[in-house]
């Protein structure tokens, strides 16, 4: 990987000899994790640690009349049984709204339900014992008298006058509504040769993390401080909120986030049971641990994507798309989730529909309604898969109607690669996208024409294969526009501190977090490259509000673009400071010196002048030998947030090749391609694996994943046997290609890549299924595409 043939003069800070940028290097944390030495909260043990188990409502909607814990409290090992009302004395309730989502309303939510349970799985009491099994034994003995209330389960009738209102004080079940009307939509439809309509249905699902949610709260009454070990994506956000609701100063709360077994957006929220665990630790003055079991995960980890959307597209015979219109409804559970709210997803759907295309005529409505099901919130790709499936589904239906190839209609309507900067009818600003370059690359990668020929040949033999294409845009690197402007104390900036230690090694503290995507690696790569230090000498510290700069964390595809830029800027300053010291020691001029391979060298000739450990020795132990008045600064801190654009949009395109068994209704995925443009690629393998992992989650949504509720609001498949996650046996090979359009909002040029895979995978699959079934004149616009859905569409059952 070393390439020292180029000299650094005239190159950017990243494009240096021995740069790690753009190279696949092993992750620094690999050895630790592979040897089973990770530190997951689930595994942590503290002295005097107690375990909490939550007794959860078996009903979707019920009044809590009486809780009798007498027997449970007498059980061996039981420390306390705490009801919602008792806990409310220690922790205040919250309301999940943001001011920039105008009109969004929600009701106060308690850490433990006080008088009413609003979904099956909401906690109604906490049982704290010396062991989890003992707490479960005791939980069986807590008796609760419920009065069952009528549950609101169907989002399509949630706003009907006959439907009960879940929170009477709110007046109705409408949490949020947004309308948008841009351009001249009516005229555009009137001018269209064809208008195609469809109803898109999306199955509610969740992001299944390998390690369930886990928290260990340790209230130290001697210090009056709460330490929270939590698998979270946003430590500072949790610090702020925990302090606020427990009546503490922020400085009294420390959040430590060590290894996290997967997050996908699931672990970026404030969960009632986690808040209850914090409060219990304070109440009982001892460490309390909560680890969700799998059944609890399905019932309480946020769900997402529960949408029904009527949509239409107007198109001219020549292929010009004239307008999009959507009318979307989504059910979010009984509360808007805290603090990011449950309206963001629907808001994103409105923002993103039609996004890759030139038409400026767009009308949209979304209604976000309450129901007595588990809460929904942001999960990987927030809103993107919905918007993409609607947009790309409509584009394919339009192409089919006018008899045009799906590639051709996209060529004619995708925003031109030389049209930037430009904007969307929903007000999005695009700095530089590459839809056409991506499309061209995709066609070459998949050998489109040959695949079409193969498809036609097989069709003659009764084998029905389909090709599905889906272009997408992705929101990454969000500025304060996402949450900050709405009043949430969720930082959009990140900070990185780098220092050269006394042995010439580098310690780097960053406010972004690591949940497996490689934050640690990319930070070390950037710092090592900018400093001229080998990665093995860079140690990265993350996930500790006491020991890292203040920042947002890792979510919304922001870690590399924002945290990476902060790392770059901090390393630049440290580099300059090191060269200043070197110049002082060597009696040279700083600009005649460089750092390569852990040593200061002459720019001219590359001669090694002083190793960094020697420089550090002088600075830390023999400062007396430095020129008088010269103070070395071998630690530098920089913060970053994008300022030019509210979001760094990325783009890309995906394709699916699959076969539909028209006899049994099963779909076999044969191949998947992605071309994406995340700007500067720091580590190709990390990007490719993010894309592939994202695609797999999108394929899960397309074919398998579904939280199935019955009409009484009971989640009927809350286990790993009945909730089907995508598994390797069914996954196709996923080829990933790249186009690189760096963002100029920062020196690094990196945009996000974490959610692109999820954005368009289901859309590509659905389009491919409809392509395969086109000889049968069948269109399916519902996911997951189960055998039952296919057989029903084909009229076989």
């Amino acid at each position, binding site marked *: 990987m070393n390439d020292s043939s180029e000299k650094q003069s005239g190159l950017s800070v990243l494009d240096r000899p021995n740069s790690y940028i753009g190279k696949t290097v092993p992750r620094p944390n690999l050895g630790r994790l592979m040897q089973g030495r990770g530190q997951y909260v689930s595994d942590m043990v503290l002295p005097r640690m107690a375990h909490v188990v939550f007794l959860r409502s078996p009903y979707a909607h019920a009044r809590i009349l009486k809780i009798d814990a007498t027997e449970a409290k007498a059980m061996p090992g039981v420390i306390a049984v705490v009801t919602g009302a008792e806990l409310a004395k220690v922790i205040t309730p919250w309301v999940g709204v943001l001011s920039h989502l105008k009109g969004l309303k929600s009701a106060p939510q308690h850490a433990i339900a006080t008088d009413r349970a609003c979904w099956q799985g909401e906690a109604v009491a906490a049982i704290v014992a010396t062991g*989890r*099994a003992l707490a*479960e*034994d005791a939980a*069986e003995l807590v008796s609760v008298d419920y009065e069952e209330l009528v549950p609101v389960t169907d989002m399509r009738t949630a706003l009907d006058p006959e439907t009960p209102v879940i929170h009477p004080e709110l007046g109705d079940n409408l949490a949020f509504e947004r309308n948008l009307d841009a351009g001249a939509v009516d005229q555009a439809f009137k001018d269209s040769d064809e208008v195609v309509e469809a109803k898109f249905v999306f199955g509610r699902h969740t992001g299944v993390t390998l390690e369930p949610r886990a928290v260990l709260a340790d209230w130290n009454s001697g210090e009056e401080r709460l330490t929270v070990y939590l698998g979270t994506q946003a430590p500072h956000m949790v610090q702020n909120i925990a302090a606020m609701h427990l009546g503490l100063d922020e400085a009294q709360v420390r959040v430590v986030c060590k290894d996290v077994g997967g997050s996908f957006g699931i672990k970026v929220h404030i969960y009632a049971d986690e808040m209850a665990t914090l409060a219990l630790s304070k109440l009982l003055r001892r460490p309390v641990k909560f680890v969700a*079991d*799998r*059944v609890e995960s399905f019932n309480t980890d946020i769900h997402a994507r529960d949408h029904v959307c009527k949509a239409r597209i107007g198109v001219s015979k020549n292929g010009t798309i004239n307008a999009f219109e959507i009318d979307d409804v989504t059910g979010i559970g009984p509360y808007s989730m805290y603090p990011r709210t449950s309206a963001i997803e629907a808001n994103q759907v409105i923002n993103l529909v039609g996004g890759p295309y030139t038409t400026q005529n767009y009308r949209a409505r979304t209604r976000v309604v309450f129901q007595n099901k588990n809460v929904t919130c942001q999960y990987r790709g927030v809103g993107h898969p919905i918007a993409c499936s609607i947009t790309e589904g409509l584009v394919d239906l339009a192409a089919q109607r006018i008899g045009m190839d799906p590639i051709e209609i996209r060529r004619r309507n995708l925003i031109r690669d030389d049209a930037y900067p430009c904007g969307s009818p929903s007000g999005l600003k695009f700095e530089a996208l590459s839809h056409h370059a991506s499309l061209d690359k995709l066609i070459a990668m998949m050998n489109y024409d040959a695949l079409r020929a193969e498809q036609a040949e097989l069709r003659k033999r*009764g*084998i*029905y294969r389909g090709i599905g294409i889906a272009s997408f845009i992705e929101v990454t690197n969000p500025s304060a526009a996402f949450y900050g402007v709405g009043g949430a104390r969720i930082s959009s900036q990140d900070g990185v501190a780098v220092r050269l230690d006394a042995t010439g090694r580098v310690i780097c503290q960053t406010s972004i977090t690591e949940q497996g995507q490689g934050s640690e690696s990319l930070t070390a790569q950037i710092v090592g490259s900018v400093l001229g230090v080998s990665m093995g000498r860079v140690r990265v510290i993350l996930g500790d509000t006491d020991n890292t700069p203040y920042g947002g964390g890792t979510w919304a595809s922001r870690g590399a673009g924002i945290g990476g830029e902060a790392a770059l800027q901090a390393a630049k300053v440290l580099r300059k400071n090191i060269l200043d010291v070197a110049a002082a020691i060597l009696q040279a001029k700083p600009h005649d010196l460089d750092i390569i391979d852990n040593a200061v060298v002459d720019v001219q000739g590359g001669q090694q002048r002083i190793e960094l450990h020697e420089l550090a020795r002088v600075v830390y132990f023999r400062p007396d030998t430095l020129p008088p008045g010269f103070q070395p600064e071998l630690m530098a801190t920089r913060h970053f947030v994008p300022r030019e654009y509210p979001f760094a949009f990325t783009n890309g395109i995906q394709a699916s090749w699959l076969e539909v068994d*028209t*006899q*049994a209704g*099963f779909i076999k995925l044969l191949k998947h391609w992605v071309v994406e443009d995340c700007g500067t690629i720091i580590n190709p393998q990390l990007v490719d694996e993010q894309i592939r992992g994202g695609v797999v989650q999108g394929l899960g949504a397309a074919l*398998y994943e579904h939280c*199935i509720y019955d009409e009484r609001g009971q989640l*009927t*498949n809350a*286990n790993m*046997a*009945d909730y*089907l996650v995508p*598994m390797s*046996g*069914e996954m196709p090979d996923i080829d990933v290609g790249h186009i690189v359009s760096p963002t100029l909002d920062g020196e690094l040029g990196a945009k996000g890549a974490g959610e692109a895979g999820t954005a368009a995978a289901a859309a590509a699959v659905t389009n491919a299924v409809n392509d395969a079934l086109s*000889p*049968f004149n069948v269109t399916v616009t519902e996911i997951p595409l*189960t*055998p*039952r859905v296919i*057989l029903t569409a*084909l009229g*076989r*059952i």
Partner: protein
Amino acid sequence: MKASAFSYTRASSVTDALDLLALHGDQAKVLSGGQSLMPALNLRLSAPALLVDIGAISELRGISESNGVLKIGALTRHVDILRSPDIAKHAPLLTEAIAYVAHPAIRNKGTIGGSLAHADPASELPACTIGLDAIIVVRGRNGERRIQAADFFTGIYETVLSPEELLVAVEMPVAKSNSAHFFHEYARRKGDYAIVGLAASGILEGDVFADLRLGFFAVGDRPLLAAASKHLTGKPVTASMLADAQAALDAELDPQEDQQASAGMRRYLARQLMARCVATLLGRPELDARPRA
């Protein structure tokens, strides 16, 4: 979730196990591979006071053939079946079917005795025993019972085994030179329990089925030996014979509705499987033509 507290004991012999079961009655549960029992305990769907681990009883292990009978001990693990040359030779249906059971980690622990005693109606092995006309050998303190597989399964997770008996072995006639077998299941993912499946064996005389045993699974509360096969034996199968057999099959099925499939879908898929089986065994693809647009 954690299981509620239970006692554990390891039986040293079949007699020892039977004594323990007799002593504790339905308070005790036999622990074999644990792949169905442990999840049930952890979910607190089952809370026995005592687990009697039979894993150390060597007389329950082993695969042997004598006098045209293949005998498989109750403790034979799925992975042993998968790899056994004796089974590949004498009961190739099992070799084929076992690959559909769960995943390697589970096949390394799960046992044939456990699978049959557990009697999940969507399970592969019970249907195979029916398709292969196997005999299930059970032992109690009063001696041994030999039960036809088709009579062994009585409902969802229900068999004729009493809580005080142990399933000790399965026996089946070895495959003949003109035996043929077919296995297929529809499952959402590899390793999942089937939506509908068929484990079949037959005797072919020329192009005629002299005998055909169709063991359907996931079509009702227990595996089903389809009587409809009588429409397919004794003379060369025609499309109309197959249609009659499919109609007869439809009439004898009583499938459940669940998240994967409606009863109607199960009936439909079972009919497809029957056609596929017949077409495959007879080498006549036209009997199972795919739908064309």
